[in-house]
């Protein structure tokens, strides 16, 4: 069961970042009537997958990915998508204070009881890490009693060795179809993966079923904050 929230704020850098491990939860929140805002920082302009023969080029890819993201939001029932206009792979080179302010502004506006983003130090892609740092810093500046909960996605190879098992596991069985539709919506990124996933699901592969059904988050460990202050 998902905890009922006042407002959920999702902050991620790339279209499709939501699809793999959060979309089932987003769809479930929307079903519960919880408002969800999704701030997507870039349009994944630097995605490598152009196909062979190519279906896109470097300059058309963001347009394709934007349309895919809009379709994905429709699949999740998400009606508050914010496109923040940064360029893929540049977030860590932006002014760090500006990135914190962006998160603060989004929180001031939406007053979330829950923020979902990546876990700093355990999210692999430099844009994930930059987003995660900005989110943690913005929340850290709030008085403890006013802070929203922070659920962080972590998938670095050393995650379980260092963070242990995730403390928040959402069973999204009831929104599986929406999750699959969200994954499929990001066709330019997922078409090959979906062929494999659909085959594994048809074969009743328990690992694939588990991956689809359970979404795993770590509540950010403030006691082991990634830095003292910013």
């Amino acid at each position: 069961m998902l905890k009922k929230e006042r407002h959920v704020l999702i902050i991620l850098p790339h279209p499709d970042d939501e699809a793999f491990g959060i979309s089932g939860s987003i769809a479930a929140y929307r079903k519960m009537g919880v408002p969800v805002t999704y701030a997507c920082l870039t349009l994944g302009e630097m995605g490598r997958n152009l196909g062979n023969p190519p279906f896109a080029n470097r300059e058309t890819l963001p347009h394709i990915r934007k349309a895919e993201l809009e379709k994905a939001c429709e699949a999740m029932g998400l009606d508050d998508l914010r496109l923040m206009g940064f360029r893929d792979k540049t977030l860590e080179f932006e002014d760090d204070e500006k990135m914190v302010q962006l998160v603060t502004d989004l929180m001031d506006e939406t007053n979330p009881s829950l923020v979902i983003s990546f876990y700093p130090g355990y999210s692999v892609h430099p844009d994930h890490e930059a987003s995660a740092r900005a989110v943690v810093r913005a929340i850290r500046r709030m008085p403890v009693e006013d802070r929203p909960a922070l659920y962080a996605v972590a998938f670095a190879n050393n995650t379980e060795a260092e963070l242990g098992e995730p403390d928040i596991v959402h069973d999204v069985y009831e929104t599986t179809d929406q999750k699959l539709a969200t994954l499929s919506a990001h066709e330019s990124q997922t078409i090959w993966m979906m062929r494999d996933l659909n085959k594994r699901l048809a074969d009743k592969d328990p690992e694939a079923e588990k991956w689809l059904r359970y979404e795993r988050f770590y509540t950010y460990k403030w006691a082991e904050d990634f830095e003292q202050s910013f």
Partner: protein
Amino acid sequence: MEIVKPDHLQELITSFANKDVYIHLETTNGSYAAHRNEGFFNVGAFIRNIVVKFELGKVVGDSPHRVGLKLPSGWIYAQGITHFTVDEYGRLLMAGLDPDGKLSIALQISETPFTY
């Protein structure tokens, strides 16, 4: 984009010579290379909307091709170019796609700035 036809690409490159042009040059292994293959030494370089004026541009070799631009006091080159197109804005987009269709290198030339 289509597979490079060297003669056609050569004509297109030459059409941008001796005028101010915006360059996009990129090499990449992807941000997940060291995640999927621990210890992989991941490198890449990216420049976008740098204005240059080249005096000679050439496409050389069998596919994947090499493309070099000679500047008044320097060079730009890209190795591994397999595909090209001229888009609706008259920009020459060249890319090196691996057999899976993943971009490994891009060299793009335009008389107008590329978007952000």
